[in-house]
């Protein structure tokens, strides 16, 4: 039999004004197991805690019930109090008589009666409590960063700077991500490559950072502190250690049909190629879909011209298995394909381009070497129409696009318009917009400069139709301010397309058991207070994978994620939550149902000899990894025999509460 102490808090007048605290303390005295009860003005105060500790010592209490504010407020406090008095911290139950009693009821008699029932329920639960021990698990001091864009690079640099090893896994042949494709950046108009490539170089030269490019994470198991990842490094057919990046092979390659992904498919590249001049690693890669040698066995020109002997047509995928303490998701984004949005004529007209394509058309390293020429006939466009919110902020369920604001389009459109007007002052620039959103440092100033100083024509309204007429694109839209229809004969139309998570994000989320929202952005552990952590312990979020954001925000979040990673890796051991599921092997029949509902993969099955009264046989039984289990309890209800139970919220404990509350 337990010896229970009950401590009723007044919370000043917060509780005591509505609940007769003395009556509560008196009423619970005769409950089975209760050997002591008291009330005090502020239980959470030093004096109140001392009262509890003294009672624990004096009455040799085995458990305490504190009738006070919400356990969300002071459960941790009272657990520490109990622990310091030598009691197991999980032998503490809180009866919430403030938020769920005194604050919502006015009648003192009624509130007191309810407080007594709540106290009795907590006592009943406590009678079924057992001391719980928090376990520990070791931390592998290495971090995996999935994605090598600016988010991944920045996180990797910061983590490495603290002295921990980092592996960056990038699916493309080079790191750099979307930022590498950009021309200038808002609102400063400095060149993207000029600020990004030094970071890329820094990452490649950092001893702690290992870049695994042209690779994907194939499998992840384990849990916070000790994940195990299998990484597939795709065959490049070029020996990375030998290739000097001289790019001779890329100029000699006779295959010219491969679309240049880096230039948004606006031009072609060889079958062997280096994505761009500053690529890291600066190593060629052979596209097996285009390579004549790999497809037909003939050719082999690149091998002949390579003085380093780096070409290896027989290279195979390589599987790398490594352990990590933390994983950062920095999988980034891609612009949506606006083809299904028929009114913009993207699929039918070469001169209707997306903003990212426009970036490449403006970029000195792009397909037009930085001269703005329209894709259809290579002429200078004289009238350009920019359309914002293409596929963003759509009504849900219309399937016309994304419900969210892509956040960056207003600013980059202003940037594009400004750049065009600066470089080609004879060009007319019109921008259709729904709203112009500029909440950022120097953002609104930037937008006003575009509109006011650079003479960009901002039209509030949406475009209804883009149609080709001769060599012009007739843009028909509405001007909501002047309340009229506008028709503009444009040479080029630029669509500020919505951005969406990289298509690989969903499968990575599933692999990591990290939750995602309906748009496939990773969700945060808490939207406000834990914005860079996934609800799954040990998984951190960096960059657009979590939600649309611009470069400075991405870099800031990348740094924040890094600091969380560092905080984790700095620990040698992690203390685990002891309120986890536990399988009674004697009752488990091995049916696997619990395994199917576990969101964390915490349950595995083993063939094991079970022993009990009259039982000694090998059975298939469930085992819970307490370091992985988060204690939701989904398994406990799925288990028909009740073999699976949850410590701290056991069937018996909850039923005891039900019984105490529902006394007929």
């Amino acid at each position: 039999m337990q010896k229970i102490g009950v401590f009723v808090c007044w919370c000043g007048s917060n509780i005591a004004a509505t609940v007769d605290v003395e009556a509560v303390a008196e009423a619970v005295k005769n409950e089975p197991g209760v050997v002591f009860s008291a009330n005090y003005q502020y239980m959470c105060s030093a004096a109140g805690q001392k009262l509890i500790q003294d009672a624990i010592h004096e009455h040799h209490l085995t458990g305490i019930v504190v009738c006070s504010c919400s356990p969300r407020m002071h459960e941790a406090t009272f657990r520490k109090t109990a622990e310091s008095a030598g009691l197991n911290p999980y032998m503490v139950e809180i009866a919430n008589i403030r938020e769920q009693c005194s604050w919502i009821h006015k009648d003192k008699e009624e509130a007191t009666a309810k407080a007594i029932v709540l106290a009795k329920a907590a006592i009943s639960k406590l009678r079924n409590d057992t001391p719980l021990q928090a376990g520990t698990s070791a931390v592998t001091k290495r971090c995996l960063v999935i994605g090598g864009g600016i988010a991944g690079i920045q996180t990797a640099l910061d983590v490495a700077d603290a002295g921990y090893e980092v592996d960056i896994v990038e699916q493309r042949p080079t790191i750099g991500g979307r930022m590498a494709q950009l021309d200038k950046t808002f609102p400063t108009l400095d060149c993207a490559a000029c600020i990004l490539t030094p970071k890329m170089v820094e990452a490649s030269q950092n001893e702690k950072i290992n870049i695994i490019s042209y690779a994907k994470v194939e499998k992840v198991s384990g849990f916070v502190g000790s994940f195990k990842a299998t990484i597939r490094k795709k065959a490049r057919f070029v020996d990375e250690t030998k290739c000097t990046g001289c790019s001779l092979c890329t100029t000699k390659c006779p295959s010219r049909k491969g679309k240049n992904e880096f230039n948004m498919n606006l031009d072609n590249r060889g079958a062997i190629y280096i994505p761009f001049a500053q690529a890291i690693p600066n190593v060629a890669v052979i596209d097996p879909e285009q390579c004549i040698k790999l497809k037909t066995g003939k050719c082999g020109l690149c091998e002949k011209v390579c003085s380093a002997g780096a070409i290896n047509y027989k290279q195979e995928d390589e599987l790398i298995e490594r352990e990590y303490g933390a994983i950062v998701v920095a999988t980034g984004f891609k612009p949506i394909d606006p083809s299904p949005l028929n009114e913009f004529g993207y699929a039918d007209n070469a001169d209707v381009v997306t903003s990212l394509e426009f970036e490449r058309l403006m970029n000195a390293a792009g397909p037009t070497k930085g001269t703005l020429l329209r894709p259809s006939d290579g002429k200078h466009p004289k009238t350009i129409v920019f359309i914002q919110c293409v596929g963003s902020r759509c009504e849900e369920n219309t399937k016309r696009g994304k419900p969210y604001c892509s956040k960056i389009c207003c600013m980059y459109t202003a940037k594009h318009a400004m750049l065009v007007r600066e470089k080609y002052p004879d060009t007319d620039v019109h921008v259709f917009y729904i709203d112009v959103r500029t909440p950022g440092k120097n953002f609104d100033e930037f937008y006003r400069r575009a509109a006011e100083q650079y003479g960009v024509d901002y039209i509030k309204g949406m475009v209804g139709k883009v149609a080709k007429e001769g060599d012009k694109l007739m843009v028909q839209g509405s001007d909501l301010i002047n309340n009229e229809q506008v028709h503009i004969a444009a040479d080029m139309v630029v669509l500020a397309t919505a951005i969406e998570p990289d298509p690989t994000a969903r499968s990575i989320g599933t692999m990591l058991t990290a939750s995602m929202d309906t748009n496939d952005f990773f969700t945060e552990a808490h939207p406000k207070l834990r914005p860079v952590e996934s609800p799954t312990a040990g998984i951190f979020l960096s960059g657009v994978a979590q939600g649309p954001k611009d470069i400075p925000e991405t870099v800031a979040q990348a740094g924040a994620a890094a600091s969380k990673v560092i905080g984790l890796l700095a620990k040698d051991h992690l203390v685990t939550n002891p309120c986890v599921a536990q399988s009674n092997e004697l009752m488990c029949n091995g049916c696997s149902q619990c395994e199917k509902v576990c969101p964390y993969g915490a349950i595995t099955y083993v063939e094991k000899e079970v022993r009990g009264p009259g039982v000694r046989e090998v059975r298939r039984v469930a085992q819970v990894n307490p370091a992985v289990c988060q204690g939701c309890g989904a398994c406990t209800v799925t288990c028909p025999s009740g073999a699976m139970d949850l410590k701290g919220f056991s069937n018996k404990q909850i039923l005891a509460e039900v019984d105490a509350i529902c006394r007929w």
Partner: protein
Amino acid sequence: MQMVNETGWKPKIVAFCCNWCSYAGADLAGSGRLSYPADIKIIRVPCSCRVNPLFILRAFERGADGVILCGCHPGDCHYTSGNYYARRRMTMLFSMLDYLGIERGRTRVEWVSAAEGAKFSATMNDFAKTITELGENRKLGDLRCKK
């Protein structure tokens, strides 16, 4: 405030609330002094998926007149998917109780976030009203438990 019908009978209602959303929502209702009947007593569970149909039946066995289960909104579960399982389980259980002729209003599931103190209070008031109208649970109690 307490719900009383003409005969002086008061309902007994159990509310299972998940720790992360609904229990916090109840706390918020408290902070906002948004009242609901004292006949409702809350039991904290880690997640709505922790609630076994046996708990609900036990409450009725012991004389509860209504049982309500509150969890995070679908998609917002702290454990990512717990409330989706709870949703299916409770749909099935409620359907079976209905099939056995038990009054439909006696059981309910509501999704209440940590930010929805007002919704929590409104939900509880509405549920208590429904139960008061339904009257005493005569079909699903165990008479041995009656004093």
